[in-house]
Structures are given as structure tokens and as C-alpha cells.
């Protein structure tokens, strides 16, 4: 079964991972700009990172027949220094012209601070002015529910349409609010700190598959680039139909991402 992993950080993964993903049926990925596990010391560090996202990774993915796309922003973990974040944001217009950029992301909150919110609001205004799709990071663990609600309120203060915004990393305590407010919702499959494939399957059973997708968010930490195919196996094991599985892992990403004319699902 072919699938799309709509959130994975391939700059942190090996070429072997591209190979294994291709073998498992992955035809396309999208890679949001994120925190690399350390704070970059200058805007130039971000310039190089954006080059990696827009030039190096598409070429690496293409060797395995995978279409690579990305999202650009200053992630919330590096937004506490608002002056620095604004310097980096000044690089965005130039890179937004690159052919694999789908929109702004992953923006959001991390510790729900005032500076994080200020930079989030500036990213939202940037996306609004340029009619960009938006991919949102929601905070971790104890900060997630509060941050998710604050983020949705901030988006409601813009002209951005909810069906052009995906709120990622939902879990059982946030998914209903996200869907009820008309946003797309992403479930991230992590071994410990977000959803497991089993819990993602449970959420699909309870909430259905409308405006809901899943991703691995594979990165430099404890994560699994094959998490989406493992969730497919879990849904199949329970007896869910191929249509249900295909919608959650292929058709929904195609529908949301297809709002950008730059999105190419590959051989899916």
C-alpha cells in the first residue's frame, strides 16, 4: 500500500531511512522547518538549513523515487529571542520562491510564552499576506492542551481559513477541539511522547477519518520513520477496510497538501 508521510525531518535521518520508506510504499513526504536539537547561533545557520530543505533533501529523496516538499519558518523553540527570530524571518520571502515549499510551518508554541506567541502571530500574518498553507506544531506533554487552545484562538484572529491550516501532534485531549473548529488534524506517531500507532487507530475509530492524517515526525530523537506503515498494519490487523486506511494515510494528505499547486504525490 502506498502512503504519504506528511511530517518527517529527513535532515536528521540517514539514506537508509529513505530506502526503507520507499520499500514500505512511501511516495511523498513533507518536511517542516524545526529545532535541530540545538539553538543556531546566527541567521546564517538558518540560511544554510533552508538551503538543505529546498535543495539537498529533494535531491536525496529523489534517489529513492520519493517526492520531497518542505515548510519554512522559525520554529517556536527558537522564538523566545524575538529579535533573533525576526532576523531569521527576513530570509523567508527569498526561500518561499523555491519549488518544493508548500507553506509556513511548523509554527506554533512550545512553552506558551509571550514571545513565542508574538512570533507565532507574525508568522500567521506572513502566511495570511501571501495566502500560504500553514502547518502548526502544538506543544509537548503538559503544555499541549493549553497551547493548542491558544494557537487556535490566535488563528481565529486572522483571515486564514481553517481548512488551509493543519494542527499537528493532536492526541485524545485535543483532537475533538481541533476538528470541531474546522482545522485539519495530524497525529504524530512516537514511541513515547505522542501517539502510538495503536492509539492513532483508536482515534480514527472514535473520530473517523475526515480531516485527519498521521505522520512519523521522524527526527533526531526517539522516533520511527516507518511509523505510518506500522499504523497501517495496526489498522489492517483490526480489520479496517482498505478505503479507511487509504483515506487516513494517502487521500487526506493529498487533499490538504494538494491545496498547494506545488505538491506532487509521486506515484501514489
Amino acid at each position, binding site marked *: 500500500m502506498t502512503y504519504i508521510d506528511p511530517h518527517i525531518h529527513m535532515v536528521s535521518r540517514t539514506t537508509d531511512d529513505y530506502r526503507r520508506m520507499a520499500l514500505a510504499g512511501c511516495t511523498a513526504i513533507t518536511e517542516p522547518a524545526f529545532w535541530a536539537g540545538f539553538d543556531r547561533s546566527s541567521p546564517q545557520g538558518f540560511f544554510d538549513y533552508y538551503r538543505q530543505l529546498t535543495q539537498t533533501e529533494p535531491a536525496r529523496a529523489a534517489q529513492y523515487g520519493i517526492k520531497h516538499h518542505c515548510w519554512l519558518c522559525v520554529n517556536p523553540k527558537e522564538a523566545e529571542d524575538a529579535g533573533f527570530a525576526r532576523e531569521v524571518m527576513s530570509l523567508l520571502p527569498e526561500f518561499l520562491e523555491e519549488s518544493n515549499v508548500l507553506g509556513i510551518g511548523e509554527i506554533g508554541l512550545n*512553552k506558551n*510564552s509571550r514571545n513565542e506567541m508574538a512570533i507565532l502571530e507574525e508568522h500567521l500574518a506572513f502566511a495570511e499576506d501571501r495566502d500560504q498553507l500553514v502547518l502548526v506544531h502544538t506543544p509537548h506533554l503538559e503544555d499541549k*492542551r493549553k497551547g493548542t487552545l491558544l494557537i487556535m484562538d490566535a488563528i481565529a484572529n486572522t483571515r486564514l481559513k481553517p481548512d488551509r491550516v493543519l494542527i499537528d501532534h493532536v492526541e485524545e485531549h485535543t483532537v475533538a477541539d481541533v476538528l470541531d473548529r474546522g482545522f485539519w488534524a495530524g497525529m504524530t506517531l512516537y514511541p513515547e511522547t505522542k501517539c502510538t500507532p495503536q492509539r492513532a487507530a483508536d482515534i480514527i475509530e472514535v473520530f473517523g477519518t475526515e480531516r485527519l492524517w498521521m505522520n512519523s515526525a521522524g527526527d533526531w530523537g526517539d522516533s520511527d520513520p516507518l511509523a505510518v506503515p506500522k499504523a497501517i498494519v495496526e489498522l489492517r490487523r483490526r480489520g479496517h477496510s482498505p478505503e479507511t486506511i487509504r483515506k487516513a494515510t494517502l487521500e487526506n494528505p493529498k487533499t490538504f497538501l494538494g491545496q498547494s499547486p506545488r505538491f506532487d504525490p509521486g506515484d501514489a
Partner: protein
Amino acid sequence: MAEPRNPNPMSRTDVVDAYFLEHRAKLLDIAAFLDRVDRADHGADEPEDFRITSMRNALQVLDDGQGERARRVLELMSDATTDLVDTAPGKGACGTPPPSTDNGA
């Protein structure tokens, strides 16, 4: 709880057959973890770590006879305040609100 939109096609017995041993092992992991915490060296007047208190509270939810346990455990382990904080206290999260958080409880 609302009716599931995509009901699990498995029967209740099928679900238990498929998942019981895996979750029995996870239950034993929690039991062994709490034993490990008890055995660990600590000061005589040292209060219980807030994360263990939170876990004990969450364990009550598992057996209270009500549904939506995952959602309720996550909410129990969530910051219930609503205001932005002045500055981010680092980048990480510890899994349940620390005592410094006025959680409205």
C-alpha cells in the same frame, strides 16, 4: 462518549485476545517502576515527587468505571492555566504540570 465513527471490527474478546499480554506487560512495568521508586534512596522528610503523585492520580482514572480514560489521563497531566507565561522556562516538558504551575486544582 459519542458513537465511534469507524467502529473497531473486532469483537471484545478479539480485542482482549490481541492485546492482553502486551498490556499486562505494561501494567507490570508500572508496578515495577513504582517499586523501584520506593526502593531508591531518599531523605526521610522528602515529599513524594509530583510526577509520581500525578501518576497515582492517573491510575485512579483507569479503574473508575468511566470511559474516555486516555483523554482524561491526558487532561489530568495537562497545565490547566490559560494565560501566556512571561518567559519560556527552557525548552523541555516533564510530562505533568510541576508544582509551580497554579493548575486550578
